[in-house]
């Protein structure tokens, strides 16, 4: 068991990093579900787009020779903000083209449109990168600072890139929380989520609020994409599938439509996965290895959902009438 305790800090850091990543992506699923009551399955591609924007900017800076001269903090700021902006705009365009024309159709139709949009975006990225760089498997350039480690008490060290993910995600989640709960536009989003028709009777331009929701959710997904790239280095157009699926699960776990729920669900899932990856083989004496981490994580999820079908913090469904 000594070995098990030794790796505990590392496992915790891995779990937190993964958890924040899932939380950021899950927000996009849950916010859109809140206002439209459907799952935007193309959100995983919005996430990947953020990762590609990040790698493209870094590669361009590198080839222009600026990567070594510019301050890393400045570079990171540019990369993160551009990833958020472009992913946000892409999500708005997606809503305009693939979902708004179907607003009065049954939800299942929009869902199919979302699946189609997901395939389209994957292959559009693949097409673009194949023409532009002759490959669609890209690697983030190394930023020296990110690969350093910071000692954190006793014999625990944390990589700077993990800290970057944690700090950035915390800031983004705090800003999002304030935006949704303390501003007029945030109140409009919450009103539309409760009852779009009545929200329009209050003078709220519902379609614009829906577009705004896609932008904010998309920007969070884009941020997750950039952080994913900076942390794990490798991206391809299909990188979004598993993180997307897991973040969607995290959103359901926390209670779909529920913003704090998405954050909590992401964290729970990230932790489960990190613990399973490191401890399954130790605890089962090698019978189950790290490759069973997803099985373990999803078994726990299924158990939680059997006990709490509406998720940890409860589903936020639209109320009809009084």
């Amino acid at each position, binding site marked *: 068991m000594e070995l098990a305790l030794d790796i505990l800090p590392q496992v915790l850091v891995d779990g937190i990093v993964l958890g924040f990543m899932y939380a950021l992506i899950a927000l996009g699923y849950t916010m859109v579900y809140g206002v439209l009551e459907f799952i935007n399955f193309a959100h995983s591609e919005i996430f990947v787009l953020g990762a590609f924007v990040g790698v493209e900017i870094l590669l361009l800076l590198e080839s222009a020779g600026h990567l070594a001269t510019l301050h890393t903090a400045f570079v990171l700021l540019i990369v993160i903000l551009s990833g958020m902006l472009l992913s946000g705009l892409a999500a708005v365009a997606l809503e305009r083209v693939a979902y708004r024309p179907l607003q009065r159709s049954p939800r299942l139709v929009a869902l199919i449109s979302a699946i189609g949009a997901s395939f389209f975006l994957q292959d559009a990225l693949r097409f673009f990168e194949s023409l532009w760089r002759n490959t669609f498997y890209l690697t983030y350039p190394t930023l020296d600072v990110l690969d350093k480690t910071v000692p954190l008490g006793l014999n625990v060290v944390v990589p700077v890139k993990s800290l970057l993910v944690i700090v950035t995600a915390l800031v983004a989640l705090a800003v999002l929380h304030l935006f949704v709960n303390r501003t007029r536009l945030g*109140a409009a989003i919450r009103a539309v989520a409760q009852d779009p*028709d009545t929200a329009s009777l209050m*003078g709220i331009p519902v379609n614009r609020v829906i577009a705004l929701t896609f932008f904010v959710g998309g920007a969070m997904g884009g941020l997750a994409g950039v952080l994913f790239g900076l942390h794990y280095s490798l991206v391809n157009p299909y990188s979004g599938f598993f993180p997307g699926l897991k973040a969607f699960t995290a959103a359901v776990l926390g209670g779909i439509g529920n913003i704090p729920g998405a954050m909590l669900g992401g964290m729970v899932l990230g932790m489960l996965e990190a613990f399973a990856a490191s401890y399954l083989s130790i605890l089962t004496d090698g019978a189950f290895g790290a490759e069973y981490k997803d099985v373990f994580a999803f078994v726990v999820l299924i158990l939680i959902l059997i006990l709490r079908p509406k998720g940890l913090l409860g589903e936020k469904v639209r*109320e009809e009438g009084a």
Partner: protein
Amino acid sequence: MLKVKDVHVYYGAIHALKGVSFSIEKGELVTLLGANGAGKTTTLKTLSGLLRPRSGRIELEGASLNDADPHVIVQRGVGHAPEGRKIFPRFTVLENLYIGGYTRAKISLGPEIERVFELFPRLKERQKQVAGTLSGGEQQMLAIGRALMVRPKLLLLDEPSMGLAPKIVEQILETIASINKSGVTVLLVEQNAAMALAISHRGYVLETGQVILEGKASELAGNDLVRQAYLGG
């Protein structure tokens, strides 16, 4: 101030309004009477843009409302307290009022909220309470107060008496009369014909999507058809 001329509205294949015409003058309190399914709520939803007329014309102060989106109609000065109250149940009373004034700058909403609290002191007592936990009467007060937050020229009220005890209905209708006296034009939809006509200037009777009767409130209250159909005798 409001002119509705030969308006036809469909729900899919259902012909819900079959050429409804009526008008409201500035400062009036007008009641739309009619049985369930006569088209009263459909009329209000069409006026506030939730439904689109297929033909006919709706004019507010001379400008067409036919193709305006709901939020634009609110900006033009139409407040709507919808059927079933439709307060935002997860918002507090105060948040509901603020969202009612969404089209206006937040700084200017203070006096408006005070006015609503004067009309409905119960709301002031419960301002921090989550609206979903209010009683039916309080929710109705909130729905009306919320619609007043835009300082409407025209206030649409859809069955404010629905499901409420007679005593509370009386209180709410009195408040509606006083809102009207303060200068707000009111279009009231009611099934409770006697009480509605008692505070109204004029009224219209809808039946299966058409206006079948109109007149001064006192005349309608004395009309045999209205007495039989809506006044229980």
